[in-house]
């Protein structure tokens, strides 16, 4: 049970002297509160596994500190940190039974036998592994094996946080949601800090109450799923979260107006102090752009195709070089392949050099 603070933490596989651009994990300072369910979300190679391994102590960071409840544990080895980790591929000890697997971490720490038996029985019940406790672990299916890996972490009563490194990769789709809801239930029951690494946004958004989005070694935004959706702090978040992703368009922004190809789009806020020389873009989610019959005052676009997702249809359109997705309201058809775009001003965001700019009201 612990709060985890990362203080100016960075890691480079090339050593501390390597140029900062090449760092696998660029300097980050953040706090993970006790009992939170966090997801580390990002594409492959964005540094999320590096960050996880730094927290668990498998990797010693090149720079910075990790605090558990205010105590610096950076120099401590993995064994001495109260961390449990579940890996991408199930790790089980072949020669042992399920029960012995669960008992292994306690045995290594010299816990008395009676105590071990009690904890193993408890965790076995919690993870629905009771019927298998006396069976060889090798013969079980992948999801049962992942539960054993998890159980080996939970069996220690002093565990501060459980880290998951894409734990559902090898699980069959229909079992995935079962295991995920099991994790959610465990989280509620045990009041543990859980950190879940994934590149699957559905997994991240359904599991976590705080999603930390990483991109190119940097934490670009950390927030609730709703925050990530409504107000992406970085164009990458807008693009990565949501399906289809956010529309990002180069634009000229002055005051309460954005101009695209000479066409004016109204904004809800005023942007007067945009940094000079920065790349200015506007971002708007497809859900807040309507494709309608072209009319004066609307940005005209050429329809390339319409994706029917059943509940909702998205028109893929083109404005000059830029490609957009827009909601196609029920009954909308275009005779000439052209559509007018109607933007919802309260959901149009302005980005300078990919970072969100807060406008004045």
């Amino acid at each position: 049970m612990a709060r985890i603070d990362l203080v100016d933490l960075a890691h480079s596989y090339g050593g501390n002297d390597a140029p900062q651009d090449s760092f696998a994990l660029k300097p980050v300072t953040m706090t993970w509160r006790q009992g939170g369910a966090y997801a580390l979300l990002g594409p492959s190679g964005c540094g999320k596994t590096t960050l996880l391994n730094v927290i668990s102590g498998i990797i010693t960071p090149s720079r910075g500190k990790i605090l558990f409840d205010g105590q610096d544990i950076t120099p401590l080895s993995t064994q001495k940190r109260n961390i449990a980790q579940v890996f991408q591929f199930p790790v089980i000890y072949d020669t042992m039974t399920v029960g012995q697997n669960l008992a292994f971490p306690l045995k290594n720490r010299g816990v008395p036998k009676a105590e071990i038996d009690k904890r193993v029985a408890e965790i076995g019940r919690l993870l629905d592994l009771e019927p298998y406790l006396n069976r060889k672990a090798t013969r079980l299916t992948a999801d049962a094996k992942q539960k054993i890996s998890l159980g080996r972490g939970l069996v220690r009563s002093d565990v501060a946080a459980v880290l998951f490194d894409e734990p559902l990769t090898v699980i069959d789709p229909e079992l995935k949601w079962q295991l995920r809801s099991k994790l959610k239930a465990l989280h509620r029951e045990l009041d543990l800090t859980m950190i879940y690494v994934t590149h699957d946004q559905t997994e991240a958004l359904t599991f976590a109450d705080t999603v930390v989005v990483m991109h190119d070694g940097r934490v670009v935004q950390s927030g609730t799923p709703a925050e990530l959706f409504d107000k992406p702090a970085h164009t990458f978040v807008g693009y990565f979260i949501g399906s289809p992703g956010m529309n990002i368009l180069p634009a000229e922004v002055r005051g309460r107006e954005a101009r695209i190809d000479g066409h004016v789009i109204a904004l809800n806020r005023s942007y007067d102090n945009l940094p000079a020389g920065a790349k200015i873009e506007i971002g708007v989610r497809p859900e807040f752009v309507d494709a309608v019959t072209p009319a004066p005052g609307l940005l005209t676009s050429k329809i390339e195709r319409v994706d029917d997702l059943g509940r909702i249809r998205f028109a893929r359109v083109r404005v000059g070089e830029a490609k957009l997705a827009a909601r196609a309201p029920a009954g909308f058809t275009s005779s000439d392949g052209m559509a007018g775009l109607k933007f919802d001003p309260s959901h149009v965001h302005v980005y300078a050099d990919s970072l969100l700019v807060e406008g004045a009201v």
Partner: protein
Amino acid sequence: MDKTVNQKAWFLVLPVFLVVAFSAVLPLMTVVNYSMQDTFGNNQFFWNGVGWFKELLDPSTDLGGRFLASLGRNLFFSLVILAIEVPLGIVIALSMPRQGWTVAACLVILALPLLIPWNVVGTIWQIFGRPDIGLLGYVLNAIGIDYNYVSNEIDAWVTVIVMDVWHWTSLVALLCYAGLKSIPEAYYQAAQIDGASRWAVFKAIQLPKMNRVLLIAVLLRFMDSFMIYTEPFVVTGGGPGNSTTFVSIELVKIALGQFDLGKAAALSLVYNLIILIVCWIFYTVMTNAGAERKPQEGAA
């Protein structure tokens, strides 16, 4: 479509039949033929039935005594070298580097003894161990250890065993190293998180994962050492006395030294049979071990 009946295919298989017949069946049948007869030279043969086999398995006869004694020596030899080479090979594999240029260097050094022809290995140790001009023998005697593999039985045994360990431990080590390399990094990381000691990691992860290659190593080393001939023959010639006469050396003595073709043939067949049986046992154990490891459905 009707199949045409055509017996021409047999002609295509015929070369294989001929090759197998000449390379395996006929020589083996010749040996079987010899094992049932006695000869006094001049190409004269007399029927002896299963007489040689009876004698072979009866320790009170000369042939049986020699066979069973050499078989005992051979089994003891195999046991000793396995007991040394397997643990030693594991230790070497465990202490080898995992990455960097040192890996290649280690592999080359380990592979060197394996590449030397067997009789050369014998010659190397024959000279190396000589008390007058051999480095090992001379040094041992110089520091006061009375070492002479020609006259002392124990010295001869030690020399033959050390030579085999020198020659073949690399094989066990390389096999184990391959087994170790195939263990995913996550196992070690998980063990770290579980607070496992070095010994616990070895017992829980490394040894079980090396299981299969170790079985292969034991099988190969047992077979090779059970059939060993060249090296001890070059070094000790089976002596002093008969103390390092293994089954293969005994066989050559009977067949070529005494020209007792019947006895030698019977001995060859029994020798062959023992090896086949041991092979079969190992094979069964290994395939069963493999089948046991297959994951089963419906256990979630």
